[in-house]
Every structure is written in structure tokens, then in C-alpha cells.
């Protein structure tokens, strides 16, 4: 097998605008150097993959067995970082051609875990947004304000000028949210000390189901009138009740397969586990 051919393959893949199927790669090489056999090409591609200079993409869009100079997951991550640099999109609406929603969701979760992307509060009814930096989120907020002001026929500059008088500096950058450490100040419902919250939960459970039956965490929270801002306290109180042997929690088997919105409805165990329901234990 010729080293030149391997280099040529790598060079073609590096300059290609998108992953190349085997046939397209062969065609590109044939134009340059006549007489490349399928066998030689296969060996050259395999060697380049083994050396880490080319990556197998499997089936991509409508082509079979594609290759490129960058791995599928790395390219997806870079694409998502790019999409989240200028804007802070809603995770469930991110679309990348040729990738399944599951792959995109997995990629987002990895980038969030690594801290490359950060989570920001949703705007209006949205659950959350993700962005590369506070500036990206600011851009999303600005877009939101602009559309609202357009609808109200108020030029955005007029709004910002007015806001600077009454609402403080428009320059301040929003900070990412962390559900486990966020403090609740001035939130909709009064903040309860943990024991008080736990007592409310224990009081509410038997009114929703008899002991030994599961109560979906979302129904329990709604039943108690606990809003999103107090959810962190609710989660901690439930975990505390579990540790004290008063309730069982049912773990969700695939939390990372859920949408961001649905996962946030679950009880966050703080250790990567999420719980879907609470059962008042029958003390034997």
C-alpha cells in the first residue's frame, strides 16, 4: 500500500467540505491519479483511520460509509459550540443535519458537564437556554426584547434608554444558573426552612395517595404549590426524608434521554441520579 495514497486520502478528507462517501472519495482520487483500485483505497483509508488522521462517520445524510478528517462527535461538539456562541438557543430546538435528536442531546449534556456550555434561565415560558458565554445569552435576551418591542411598536433603543433610568445598568451580564446552589431571594413563594418543607411534604403525601403508593414528584410539587424557584429546597427536603427512612424514591432509568424540560421536573439527586416519584414508606 502506498504511503502517498494514504496522504492523498487524508489531504482529500481535510479539504472536503463535508464527510465523503467511499464512492465520492474514490472518484476524487481517480481524477487526480488514475488507476486506484478499490483494494488500495480501502487499505489506505483503514490505515489513515488507524493512525487517527481520518475518522469513520458511518452513514451520513444520504451517503453510506463516510469518512472525514474530524470525528463525528468532535464535529458535532464544535458545531454546537458555534451555534451557542452567538446565541443561547433552547436545547430541544437545536438541530444539526445528519444527527439524531438523541445524539444532539447527548452532545449537549457532555458539553454542559465539561462546562463548555452553560445553562441560562429560560425566557418567558421556556425552561432553560444554553450558551457559550453570558454574551450569547445577552444576545438571546436582546432578540427577545427586540421582538416584543417590535410588536409593541417601540424602537428597541427607546426601550433600553428608558430601562437604563428605571432598571439599572443594561450592561450587566447574566450569570449561569446552578440548580443545586442557586439561592432563592424574593421568589414567588416564601422560602421555607428545610424541616418545614419536609413536614409539608409528609403532610401532603397521604392526602395524594395511601402509604405504599407512588406519588409523581411533579404532582406532589404542584399539590404543595411549590414554584420553580423553590424546587431546589423541595428536592433537598425529599432527599432528606429518604435518608431518614421516611420515603422511598423511584429513580428514573434514563434521565439523560429526557428533554431538558422534563428532566428538570424530576427530583435532582445531586449525584447524577434523578427521581420520578415519592412513596411514603409503610413502617413495619
Amino acid at each position, binding site marked *: 500500500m502506498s504511503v502517498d495514497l494514504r496522504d492523498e486520502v487524508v489531504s482529500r478528507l481535510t479539504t472536503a467540505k463535508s464527510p465523503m462517501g467511499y464512492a465520492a472519495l474514490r472518484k476524487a482520487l481517480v481524477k487526480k491519479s488514475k488507476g486506484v483500485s478499490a483494494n488500495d483505497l480501502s487499505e489506505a483509508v483503514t490505515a489513515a483511520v488507524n493512525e487517527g488522521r481520518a475518522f469513520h462517520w458511518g452513514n451520513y445524510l*444520504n451517503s453510506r460509509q463516510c469518512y472525514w478528517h474530524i470525528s463525528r462527535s468532535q464535529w458535532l461538539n464544535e458545531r454546537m459550540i458555534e451555534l451557542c456562541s452567538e446565541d443561547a438557543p433552547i436545547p430541544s430546538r437545536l438541530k444539526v443535519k445528519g444527527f439524531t435528536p438523541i*445524539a444532539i442531546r447527548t452532545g449537549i449534556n457532555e458539553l454542559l458537564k465539561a462546562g463548555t456550555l452553560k445553562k441560562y434561565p429560560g425566557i418567558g415560558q421556556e425552561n432553560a437556554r444554553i450558551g457559550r458565554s453570558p454574551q450569547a445569552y445577552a444576545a438571546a435576551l436582546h432578540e427577545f426584547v427586540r421582538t416584543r418591542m417590535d410588536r409593541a411598536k417601540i424602537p428597541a433603543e427607546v426601550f433600553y434608554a428608558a430601562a437604563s433610568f428605571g432598571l439599572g445598568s443594561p450592561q450587566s451580564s447574566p450569570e449561569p444558573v446552578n440548580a443545586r446552589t442557586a439561592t432563592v431571594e424574593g421568589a414567588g413563594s416564601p422560602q421555607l426552612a428545610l424541616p418545614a418543607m419536609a413536614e409539608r411534604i409528609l403532610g401532603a403525601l397521604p392526602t395524594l395517595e395511601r402509604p405504599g403508593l407512588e406519588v409523581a414528584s411533579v404532582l406532589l410539587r404542584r399539590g404543595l404549590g411549590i414554584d420553580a424557584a423553590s424546587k431546589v429546597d423541595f428536592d433537598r427536603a425529599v432527599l432528606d426524608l429518604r*435518608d431518614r*427512612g421516611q420515603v422511598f424514591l423511584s*429513580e428514573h*432509568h434514563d434521565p439523560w*434521554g429526557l428533554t431538558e424540560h422534563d428532566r428538570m421536573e424530576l427530583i435532582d439527586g445531586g449525584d447524577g441520579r434523578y427521581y*420520578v416519584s415519592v412513596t411514603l414508606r409503610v413502617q413495619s
Partner: protein
Amino acid sequence: MLNPFSSQCAGVDLDRRSPDVAAINAQAFLDCQRMIQDVRQTRQTQALLLTGPPGSGKTHLLGRVQGWLEEWSAAGETSVFVPIRMVTNARMLWRLFREHLANALLIRRKDGSRCIHQVLKRDFEERAETSRDLSIVLGSLMRGERVLDAAAWLRGEELPQAALDALGLMAPRDDEQQEEGSRRIVKQLCQMIAPAPVVLCLDQLESIQSTGSDKESFRSFGETVSELHDLANNLAIISCLQSGLLNAFLDGVGGGQNRDRIQERKSALQPLTLDQATILAAARLDADDELRRERAGCTNALWPLDANAFRARFPSEGYLVARKAIALCSDLFEQWRGSRDTGPATDQEFLEQHLEERLKPVSEDESERVLRTGLLTLFRLRGLAVDASSSRGAAAIDGVVEAGRRVAISVCNQRPQGRGLTNRLRGLEAAWPAGVPELAIFRDARRGIGPGAVKAREALANLESRGARFVQVEHEALAALKALNELLADAKSGDLAFRGDIVGLTTVENWLATHLPSSLQSLLDSFIEHSNQPAWLPALTELVNEARIVRLEDASDRLGLHPEEVEDFVQLHPSLFGFAGGGIRVLYRAAEPPVPSPA
């Protein structure tokens, strides 16, 4: 010595082999017993929703119920136990119920007699409400005549015309009528079995969801169970659902009546406390004769397991689901005997092994369910956009796939004899969604449409003239699709566990997306390739077929195209055309030997 903790029930079969500890989940078992007894006494159908986290023992509990009913039966109290794993398309629920009810009736008891002989009254042939065909089939089964064909009909399988004629039965009907027909058979059978209870155990309910956001399937299920409730007065319906989907399920099943009926009674499985897990482990150890002898008189209730290690590894919150507790014991047992684990080392190997284990032949009668349950999922795994809601209101269409252009998908697997296939194909003409340029009709390749099926062939030709295409699915692809359906169903239910840890649906889908069996890969490739074919392809094919060899420039002139466009296409499709470059660029039929290059 076998590891007594190596068999872990995971939603595949009812677990009757591993020892049962009555004290574990006693309340849930009592709830099931009470409901069945109430159905018998009050002569009113009842339903119970049984929930629990994955691995908490739902399927094991159903095995316990089955054992109890067998004891009941030995004492002269008859009942019919019908376990159903809900791996199906939500539009085929009645057919699934019929098939499993028939299987339960046809099962042989310990004395060699079939359940049907014990539970059916002799007067069924005189009952006015019993349909003619059902009377014939039951009569045949009771007399032991033409049992194979009669049993197949009772299960809802399509029979060849000769078998139908021999039994004196009507020809099968089209898709919607088959559902309705199955509903009537279920109703009549249940009424005949009354007052003995029919215990319908609907396991792995989450499997009927085609995607995580699919509410339509839960709604169909809600309506079907509501109908079941009104169908007869001797049904005890146990619906098993994993806790994670409780909320979505109750939201999805629709209106108050459906919801109230499904959860008329409720029960939940509990995780094991340390004491319960210890009792379970001891019971499993004692189930092995050799171990039981050696354990006699031991002060450590868990010997040969290291009791300190068992306690240390038990979660600090003080409870664990049964499957995880058993996995922990299995690990400690292997440590004790110092053996090397020969099982899969990684998630990937585990999934490969599980997919392979599920690769089993699919019968012709199963293939419709396999295709209708799995095809859309398969397209989705390939990253194609799928719209299952496009099929609403048009039973003949299973969904619409975006594969270069929009393609409506329909599974037509009826036997060519009779009206079923013709009606289905004719129905497709009307059901073809507006704005969808293409229709793909999938069918088990073993079910050809022979020259005798004149009307079906005519209907197919009409559809093909409008742009429909006919995709025959080979049996290897069917087996792989069935295995894929089952693997995903287990993953949805949280019943796929590797060393006690659940392998989630996301992991399985991601793995499948890149590790599809080659038969499915080829099916997808040919489907996508066809969908991306340019509109001028038939004209080019005809031209090349006529001329055998044609200059590229001449062909592109005739088609009004740029030569490079044609060259790009033919180079990428060597299975369709041959191409020779050099001085003069020519196309030829792919089957022809290549033309020697001009000197």
C-alpha cells in the same frame, strides 16, 4: 456450581424458576389476589395499575400470581391466566389480546388436557351471540380435529384458502376489520369463559410508545382498556408500568373514564430493605441443594457471601431494587469462588450479545406486527425525520418519512388470497396523504403476490403508476427488526441491566444507530437510495436498456441535462450503470461487461 444469582428476570419471561419470598412485595400480591377474588364474587370486571421502578420485580410478581392461580385451579377454581408483553403497535392491540388469550386457552395443563377443555362450556355452539366461524373453530378444537389450523385461526393468523375451505371458514378481512374482528373474538371468548376470571396481565406497557413523546399510543391503550372493561364481566386486568412513566401515562391515556378505569385499583412495588435483601439472598442460596447442605448451621445467614461486604455495599439510603440487590449478591458470589467473570466486559459487548440472543426467525404471521412496530423506529435511528401522526385517520398509512423527499409508509402483509390484501391496497389510494409524493409499501418477501391474485396485482399496479414502490423485506431483516423491537422495549421498560445497572434507552439507541445489523442497513440503504433518485432516472434507464451502450453526451442531450450531472450520478451508482471514461465517455447496462477503453 452455578451462580444462584445469575438468572435475573428482565421482562422477557415470567420468572417461575427463581425462588419466591412471599414476604417481599406481599401487599402488591395481596392487591392482585383481592382483585381476582372480587371479580369472581361480584362478577364485575376490575383493573389494577401496578407500578414500580425498573428491576423492582413486576414480572416476578406476575409469576407469583400465575403460581397462585395454578394452586387455585388444582382446588377446582378455574381461571385463565393471560400474560402479555406489550411489544406491539398501538393499532394492533386487539389482535395482540386475541393471540395471547388463544395461546392461554390452548396451553396444555399438567394432566395433558388443554385449558380450553376445562373452561369452555359445552353449550357454546348453541349460544346465539357466538359467531359462526368461532363456533366452528372451537368445535374443531374440542373434538381434536384439524387442531393446527383451528388453533392458528383462533390466534388470529391468516390461513391458506385450502385450510379455510376445509374448516368451512370465511376469508380474512382488511386491516381495520381484523382489529374489530379480534375484538369480537376476545369478547365472545371471555363471555364463554365466565364466570371464571380471565386474568389479563399487560406487562411492559411503556413498550407501546413509539417515541418518548408519543401520547397517541397511550391514548389508544386507554380506550382499548376502557372497552375491555365493558366487554365482559369476568376480566381482571393488571397493567404493569414503570414508575418513570406514570405521569406521562396517566396524562396520555385520555379522558377521566379511561384513566379511572385503568387505575380503578392501584398498587406499587417497593424496593428491598437490607433485611428483605438478606432474606432474598438466603432463599436463592438455599435453592441450590449443594449450597443448602453446606450452609446448614452457619451463623452467617449469607454464607458463602461476605456479609460485611454485603452491608457495606448496600446503599446508605437503606434500600435497593431487587434486581440490583441480586446483582450485588452475584458479584459477591463470584468473589467467593474466585472465578473470573466470563460475561461481557462493556456496555457495548453486552448490547451486542443481547441483540444476537434475540435474533430468531419471524413467522409470516408475526411479520406484520414486527414491521409495523419497528419500521418507523428504524428510520428514526438512521437520523431521518419521521412523522407518525401523519397516519392519523388513515389506518392504511403507518407514517411519513423524510428521506430526501417525503415518503408515506404502509405495511401490507395480508395473504394474497381473499379480499384482505386487495382492500388494503385499494384503501391506500384514498389514504395516500396529500403533498407526499411517494408511497413505499413494505411486505414480507416470503408473501409474494402470485399471478392468481389478479385484483391485488391490479391495485398494486395502479399504485405503482402513481409513484408507489413495493419493498420486499427479507427474513433476515425481519428477524433483525424483531430483535431490535425487543431490545428497545426492554430498554424503555428499564429491563435491560448490565451488572445491575440499567442500560438506558438513549444508550441503546445511540449504539443501534451505529451498529445496525447488516440486513437492516441494506434495507435502509436501498430505501434511501431509491428516495434520492432523480426524476430523470427512469428515462435514462430506458435509454440505456434500449441502446445498451450510449455516449454520455448523447444521453445527457436526450434528457436535457448537463453531462457532469449524469456522470456524477452513474459513478455513484455502479449497481445501476456501467461507466467508462477516457477519450469517449460511455454508459452501459450494469450487467454488461465493461467496454474496453479506446487505445
